């Protein structure tokens, strides 16, 4: 079953006199449980594609279908509902709220889902356990390392049990050791919980850990490969 699919997806920006086709008539399908990386040079449109897949942005033309739901004609409130219920986001800069501790940060999407307080805490702690940070639940982001902060962000993305987790350069601010550990964690979540991931990266090592590498150039798919490393094992 396809979790997300696009048809003739196009996103056009106007910058002054110039028109930029960030995404240009792109067709893509990601199945449940897939572990996908999206690669490409800067300006290739990969982040724009990620935003479109996650309903953060609306296409100029074409469609995005998430979990069987076509999103093209939806209002911004409906798109917020889809993001809340079906998508988890991980960003390069973690984007944790500094005034909240780790558990509260993880709880945040559940607040917007109007989940009851006690259940919220329970699910947040379970998500933190998945990323191995149970003992850091009460720490504020400023008291956590970069790697730990990104793991909290992953827990936040997972806590709503979304159909799809989208990550934008999740290892961009991490050193090699932390990058490997983070990818170990993501591989494990994909394998053991059948969680669908799509990761935008330009780190070949990160892409190498995924099962499917989609290369984007000028807003189009340049290549779509499924290398042999199907188990997501360390290279």
């Amino acid at each position, binding site marked *: 079953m396809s979790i997300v699919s696009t048809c003739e997806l196009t996103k056009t920006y106007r910058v002054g006199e110039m028109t930029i086709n960030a995404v240009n008539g792109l067709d893509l399908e990601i199945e449940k449980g897939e572990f996908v990386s999206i690669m490409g040079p800067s300006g290739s449109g990969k982040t724009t594609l990620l935003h479109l897949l996650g309903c953060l942005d609306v296409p100029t033309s074409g469609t995005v279908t998430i979990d069987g739901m076509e999103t093209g004609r939806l209002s*911004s409130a409906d798109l*917020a509902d889809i*993001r*809340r219920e079906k998508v988890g986001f991980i*960003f390069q800069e973690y984007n944790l709220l500094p005034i909240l501790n780790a558990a509260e940060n993880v709880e*945040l999407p559940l607040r*917007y889902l109007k989940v009851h307080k006690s259940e919220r805490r329970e699910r947040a702690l379970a998500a933190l356990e998945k990323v191995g940070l149970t003992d850091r639940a009460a720490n504020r982001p400023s008291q956590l390392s970069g790697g730990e902060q990104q793991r909290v962000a992953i827990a936040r993305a997972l806590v709503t049990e979304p159909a799809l987790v989208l990550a934008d350069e999740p290892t961009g601010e991490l050193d090699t050791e932390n990058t490997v550990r983070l990818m170990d964690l993501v591989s494990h979540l994909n394998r053991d919980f059948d969680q669908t991931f799509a990761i935008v990266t330009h780190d070949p090592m990160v892409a190498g850990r995924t099962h499917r590498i989609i290369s984007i150039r000028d807003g189009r798919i340049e290549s779509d490969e499924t290398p042999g490393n199907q188990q997501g094992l360390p290279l």
Partner: protein
Amino acid sequence: MTFILRNMWRRKGRTFLTVFGIVVGIFALTVLGGMTARMNQQINGMKGFIADKITVAPETAGSQIRQMSQGKLLELSKIDEIEKVPGVKSASGMITVQLKPSEGMSQPQMLVGYQPVAGTSMFNNAKISKGRELQPGDAGKVLLGSTLATDLKAKVGQPVTLKGKQFEVVGIMDTTLGITDTWAFVPFQDALDIFLAENPYVKAEGLTQQITVFPKPGVNIETLSGHIQKVVPGIKTTSPKQAEKMISDISTIFSAIILGIAFIALFVGGLSVINTMIMSVSERRREIGLKKAIGARTWTVLGEYLAEAAVIGLMAGAVGMLLGLLAIAGLNRATHASNVAIFTVTVTVVVGPVIFATILASLAGLFPALRAARLNPVDALKEE
């Protein structure tokens, strides 16, 4: 709620300054509100006093206040003329002498002489639970307003000295909160003697400053007032409605000035809330982007920021109001010795400013909150 407080705590200094700005405004509003409330109380007391009487003064081109200061007087024979007008029950001369000028916002103390009429009470609005009202034939007797009585430590049956003349206290009125609380009522002739002693240039006998007219039961007092004006020459009548309007006009102007000052202070406070909220929105653009990315609706973000602004207003309102009440209590205590209350604390004075500050801050926060809520998540997340 905890999140709101934590966000405010994040920028302690700025939050403090913003709150402080509104506190000053609310403080002013509370104190001046207390003053207005007291003034309205006095005005209502005044309205009570004039409600059932027509006041007759000498005819002049100017206002009643001016003619009193000009010292124009009426002949007592006008009383007989007025009493002949159909519908008039009785008419009584009235002389007013100042005992003590007003201090600040306090009421002046007045000595008022009138001719008691058998079977007609001068005071429809005040009860006299201690002693009695003046009666025809009384001389050297005084009926005291409650505040003045306390001031003079007067007791019924005992003597008091007013303007160097000794009077026997025959009655003390209950508190009305109106102007008559600081008045002393004496028989007409006693007041006239004092008046003449103070104004040696006035050629004595047969004069009065004012005449107070009571209508017969069932007679329309407004119509009667106009009628007297028409048939008796050389006088100017003021009906209860006209007097009330004069008083209301003055009180409206006062209230407007007082509240205007407070509102200017609050306007400045409101601007600082707008500034603070705009600052915190632009500082937290990424946060807003993140919240929207993980599914917060526009309304949710709007609500969060409005709540933050409202809490600023609520806190500032509460603090300002409490400081205002402290100031009122202190000032009332300080003037207590001279038996003058400048402020009155009513429910409106207490609750009004707090509600007002909360609404003001929410309104001030509305524009920044809307800006926050409408942010496009993609753009907001790009911010450094």
